[in-house]
């Protein structure tokens, strides 16, 4: 397994996969035991440390990917129809090397490293996910962005015949799904392009063949199935801001102090939660990555630039 140095969640908070798997096994055994004795399971509580990796079936079957439908289960049910090979990425804007590139050529010679990140959705639920990814900086630098490149904009694939959400009459989203980062955010060592999950190829419903992951921002910033990278001088208009500017901004940094019109952001439900224990925990500024990224926003009023 390739383990990068970067997961800055204190190592003490992370459960190694072996321990985790053993624990699962143990839970399974105790569950069987408990079931056998006719009691209901409540024995798991004592076994949970702070950040346990979210089970793979939840990470891959509980997704927001509106291109495939608005239910959390829609992406898992529909995304298999998406063709990810061949995959062409268009690079444009303020860079020396622009044009159409085959996905394999862009990542050629680069090794994906494992990064275990907290993942915080704007809907106030969260997971802990073992991604496999390549530092975004490494990917972007090969296109040699010019001095005018202040922001980078990403776009998701548009293919209505493979993406039922895009062909739906009842959707109000102006496809393609668009997101962006400031260049210094994109060059932060935490920012990665994800190509794998749980040590395997990235599943379609999680954004195959590659997707962004910026763990200190709400999940919607981490755009999936990217086909376009554009270097621009002006701040790009991201999809959710375009839909509802009063609720979604460009920055979307995880911030418990700035409440959202639909959800309080002060706390989150760590999945899986159960009916009788929502597994609620306080949300941390920058999703716990303040040490790595807070300096990017020095002097900015984060209530205004939400």
């Amino acid at each position, binding site marked *: 397994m390739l383990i990068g140095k970067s997961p800055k969640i204190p190592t003490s908070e992370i459960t190694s996969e072996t321990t985790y798997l053993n624990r699962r096994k143990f839970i399974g055994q105790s569950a069987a035991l408990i079931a056998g004795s006719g009691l209901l399971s409540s024995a798991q509580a004592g076994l949970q440390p702070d950040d346990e990796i979210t089970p793979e079936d939840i990470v891959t079957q509980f997704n927001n990917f509106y291109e495939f439908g608005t239910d959390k*289960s829609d992406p898992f049910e529909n995304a298999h129809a998406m063709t990810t090979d061949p995959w062409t990425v268009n690079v444009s804007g303020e860079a020396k090397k622009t044009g159409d590139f085959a996905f394999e050529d862009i990542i050629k010679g680069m090794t994906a490293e494992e990064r275990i990140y907290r993942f915080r959705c704007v809907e106030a639920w969260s997971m802990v996910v073992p991604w496999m990814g390549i530092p975004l900086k490494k990917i972007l630098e090969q296109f040699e962005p010019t001095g005018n490149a202040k922001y980078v904009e990403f776009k998701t694939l548009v293919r209505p015949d493979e993406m039922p959400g895009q062909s739906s009459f009842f959707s109000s989203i102006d496809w393609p799904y668009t997101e962006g980062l400031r260049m210094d955010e994109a060059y932060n060592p935490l920012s990665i392009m994800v190509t794998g999950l749980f040590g395997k190829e990235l599943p379609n419903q999680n954004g195959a063949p590659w997707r962004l992951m910026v763990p200190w921002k709400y999940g919607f910033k981490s755009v999936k199935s990217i086909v376009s990278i554009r270097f621009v001088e002006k701040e790009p208009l991201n999809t959710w801001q375009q839909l509802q500017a009063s609720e979604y901004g460009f920055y979307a940094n995880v911030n418990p102090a700035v409440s959202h019109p639909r959800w309080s952001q002060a706390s989150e439900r760590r999945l899986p*939660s159960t009916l009788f224990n929502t597994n609620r925990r306080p949300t941390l500024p920058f999703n716990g990555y303040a040490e790595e990224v807070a300096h990017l926003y020095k002097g900015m009023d984060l209530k205004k630039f939400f």
Partner: protein
Amino acid sequence: MVMVKRRPNSTLKFTLAVFAGAPFAWLVYLISLEIAQPTSGLGPDPAEGLLHYLGEWSMIMLLVAFSVTPVRRIFKQPLLARSRRMMGLFAFAYVFLHLLAYIVLYVELSMQQLLEDFVERTYITAGIAAFFGLLAMAITSTKGWRRRLGQNWLRLHKVIYLVVPLALLHLIWLRKDGFADITLYILWFVILLGERAYQVRKSRQAATV
């Protein structure tokens, strides 16, 4: 035990009750799955799963209750009138459970969170307002209250014309995208309003003749 003679409307009423209770029965089944094995019945975020399930059925049951009178008139089923209160109470029950799930499972009884939601989140304000309208209707749905209130009873129960749109607003403001079901609900509501407008017109014309 006293034997009750089956009146012709009791079969109809019983059938309606079975249909109206079915989503609840299914929910009980899902919850039992969930209790036996977490995430199996209501998904990895069961509090939200339960909340949305009850919310969706609250909306449908409200519209069903609101449909009783028009359906009675259009299909000339006078016996349906005797099921109207029951259907209204079913709708109230789903709404009540929806609210209960929100307070107990979702905000986990946090007073501060509840207040923040009521004041700052307009979709929740609309939902709460709809609930209180329904609550007033549910409390005064007994024969005793109906007699005591006299003419005012009908007036009070006109609050349904506010409750349904408020419930629709609650859903519209909450939803981010994917408006298929909402479109259907709005259409359903508009048809029911249309039928009532037609009845009012007809009775006015009859009065002037």
